[in-house]
């Protein structure tokens, strides 16, 4: 199949999919096409689609491609849908999540050391929402549980992968400015 033929099919799949569409999943559907070809088709599709500057765009999230509305139209979309917005995370939960994201794999005791306060409740909430998962146990005395971020975390915050997060050093610069 030519790349030109592949492109509209990929567009249809991404539109219909609930989750970001990954290369592996597409390879299952097109076993005869090479990874390279599928990826080229995907990237070209995203580029052309987004160049149109329409109300939708194709983004790379959590290792896959996803079609969403553009955030700048949210007011009108909201006015039309009249939907309830979803509950957001508390600042305590976000802070705990930031520690997990940057220090993973991390134990509860290490989170406590950084935040200077107990974070059990916040961590449970993050586990409940599946933004944080148990990744193993630390090979030290007591074998404490290690926590890390999940794929849902990437989706929730619209991240391609963890490397897309700004580095902690960038935050250090801002932190220095509070003086």
């Amino acid at each position, binding site marked *: 199949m030519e790349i030109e033929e592949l492109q509209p099919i990929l567009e249809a799949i991404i539109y219909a999919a609930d989750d970001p569409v990954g290369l592996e999943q597409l390879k299952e559907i097109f076993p005869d096409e090479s990874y390279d070809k599928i990826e080229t088709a995907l990237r070209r599709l995203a580029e052309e689609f987004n160049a149109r500057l329409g109300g939708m765009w194709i983004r790379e999230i959590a290792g896959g491609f996803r079609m969403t509305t553009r955030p700048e139209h949210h007011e009108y979309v909201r006015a039309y849908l009249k*939907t309830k917005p979803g509950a*957001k995370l508390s600042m305590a939960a976000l802070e705990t999540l930031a520690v997990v994201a940057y220090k993973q794999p991390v134990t509860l005791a290490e989170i406590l050391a950084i935040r200077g306060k107990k974070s059990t409740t916040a961590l449970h909430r993050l586990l409940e929402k599946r933004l944080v998962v148990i990744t193993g146990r630390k090979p030290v005395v007591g074998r404490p549980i290690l926590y890390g971020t999940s794929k849902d975390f990437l989706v929730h915050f619209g991240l391609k992968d963890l490397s897309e997060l700004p580095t902690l050093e960038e*935050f250090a610069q801002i932190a220095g400015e509070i003086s």
Partner: protein
Amino acid sequence: MTIHLEGFEGPLDLLLHLIKREELDIWNIPIAHVTEQYLDYLQIMRDLNINVAGEWLVMAATLIYIKSRMLLPPDTVQETGQEEESEDPRKELVYQLLEHQKFKNAAQMLYTREEVENAVWNSPPMDALEDGKEVIAVTLFDLLKAFHEVVKRFEAQSSIGFDQEEVTIEQKLAELRRLLMVHDTLVFSSFFARAPSKQHLIVTFLALLELVRLHEVFLYQKKAFSEIRIMRSKSAGKTA
């Protein structure tokens, strides 16, 4: 009755709050002054019967320790004759504060990203407050201070009460929800008007914290140090 504040800010947050509010130099914290302020807040929390968790006391002890070390003359006469400068006793705390601030900034970044993601597809963001007017989120410490004032005012004007009825949090929650059905926003202090006893005040405060926790209300200020306002969140009320 004891108030538990797990899930809200901790001692490091209070220190950063004090440093920012008073525009102090983080590299040269006037430790005596900050310690005094910190202990004042602890006292407020005690007065309000808030369960002061261990970490708050550990920080108080740390501050007092640093303060006493600062009073001592620097040990210039080291027996070994090393030309090493004695270390600033505040150094470790400053490092801890900056580290904490880094993660607070990271949390802020996540917050912003979540906001954008909520504006995408069919899950738009939560409540633009009052037509997108800039407002300031209220910290726990602002809240405690405001509540402390409410209690003080109450104690100043009230005479001896008679057999006051006890009220439960459930009753108060139901009452506040009814109130919020009628008003979209309320002023913090008016929330406590007509409370017949201190117990009522505390139960009201607890009920308010519960509403915040359940995301049923938002607390905000139009500008720093102005009245704290309580706004019903748009997503609430439908489940009630």
